[in-house]
């Protein structure tokens, strides 16, 4: 029978490291040459996993099944690389910097797995039409694609942060129909409205968020 190490648990220290610190404080620790890696990872881990999943999950079903590395692994690897190389002192947007790290790592993983698969099937001389990643050459990712994924991820973070401004029905419709991708009739039954009301609620929720995030100027017609 294995016995686990019995370490002293310092709850107070743990609370401190897991507490969400302002980016200003985190950036200050970076500039001072002693980054608070625990606090940075605690704050941005989930965002990095979500960013990675946007890339890992972008291939077709077959490609995804060969991806091998999951988004959490990609996020971990990305953060380990960041820890090794350090964060440049002139970085001002930590969120974007770490999102980029996660997205780039995920693209690398995706490229490597596609290449590995190609090498494997070359050995077995499978017909070309059965090859995984027929868009292999296209998988050399353009910088614009990386930026687009990062932009989307940062937008998602903004959306999540602003969900409390929505009415209960708007929030439930947006989360159920869009975040969770469930059928309108299921979401409607859950919140006690007609199914056709769901798209109205989604529209009004999205419009309100777009205004809050500065994507729309006029909120006069938010319904």
């Amino acid at each position, binding site marked *: *029978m*294995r*016995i*686990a*190490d*019995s*370490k*002293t*648990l310092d*709850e107070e*220290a*743990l609370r401190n*490291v*897991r507490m969400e610190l302002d980016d200003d404080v985190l950036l200050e620790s970076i500039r001072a040459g002693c980054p608070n*890696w*625990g606090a940075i*990872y*605690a704050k941005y*881990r*989930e965002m990095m*996993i*979500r960013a990675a*999943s946007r890339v890992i999950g972008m291939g077709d079903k077959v490609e995804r099944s060969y991806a091998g590395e999951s*988004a*959490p692994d990609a996020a*971990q690897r990305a*953060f*380990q690389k960041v820890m090794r190389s350090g964060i440049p002192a002139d970085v001002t947007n930590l969120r974007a910097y770490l999102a980029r790290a996660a997205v780039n790592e995920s693209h690398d993983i995706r490229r490597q797995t596609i290449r590995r698969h190609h090498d494997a099937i070359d050995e077995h001389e499978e017909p070309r039409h059965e090859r995984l990643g027929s868009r292999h050459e296209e998988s050399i990712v353009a910088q614009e694609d990386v930026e687009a994924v990062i932009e*989307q*991820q940062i*937008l*998602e973070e903004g*959306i*999540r942060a602003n969900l409390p401004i929505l009415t209960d029905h708007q929030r439930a419709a*947006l*989360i159920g*129909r*869009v*975040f*969770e*991708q469930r059928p*309108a009739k299921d979401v409607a039954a859950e919140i006690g409205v007609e199914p056709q009301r769901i*798209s*109205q609620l*989604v*529209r009004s929720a*999205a*419009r309100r*968020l*777009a205004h809050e*995030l500065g*994507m*729309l100027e006029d909120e006069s*017609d938010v*319904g």
Partner: protein
Amino acid sequence: MSDRSFDRVDEIVNQYLRYLTDGKTPPSLYHIPERERVEVNAIMRILEASWGSDAVEIPPLEFDPLAVELGLVAAAPAIVSLSGPAIKAARKRSGKGLRAVVDQLVAQGFTIDATWVFNLEQVEVTDVASSLASGLARLLDAPLTEIQAAAPSPGRSPLQSFLKSRRFMQAIERWAHVHGVEVPRLRTWAEGQLMAGAYRTKGMPTDEEWERLLNTLFETWDE
């Protein structure tokens, strides 16, 4: 904005959600007025950024080795109280048979058998080494907290209190002295044996019963 305009936007939102679902035809914005187009574009960006974001699995921190390394996860206590019904439910959900669980735990180096796992599921609360609890949780693809028993009431966990008692230490020291064995080594071994053997003791054993079991176990000590 007029009702007609809202209807048009709602229809486009509907079409866009269908497009996100099946990836077929995106809605055409050709025929709609400029003002509505700005709004629709903003709404579509919100929907695209949020689409399926709750489908991303964010593993608990305790399953993230980097989080553990960075000290974001509380060091596990040496002994964890597990809930039999919760383990049974988690095992059924994972689709694993009793035998598969036993085989995989044995493969990980734990000295358990089918009877032990069966009893574990029948008993309300069982104290086990935290390494075994974590291994079981991973195996069942469940967070450790899900299979843990509710926090014990003071004095309820007989094994934990016995292992911390003077009586236990005296028994260890006595036997170690007589047989020329190092106390820490014997203690670690005895703790493991008692935790492994916890299942054999039905009900709530007293300290006397634990000590009797300990003395029996001493007879099996093999350098």
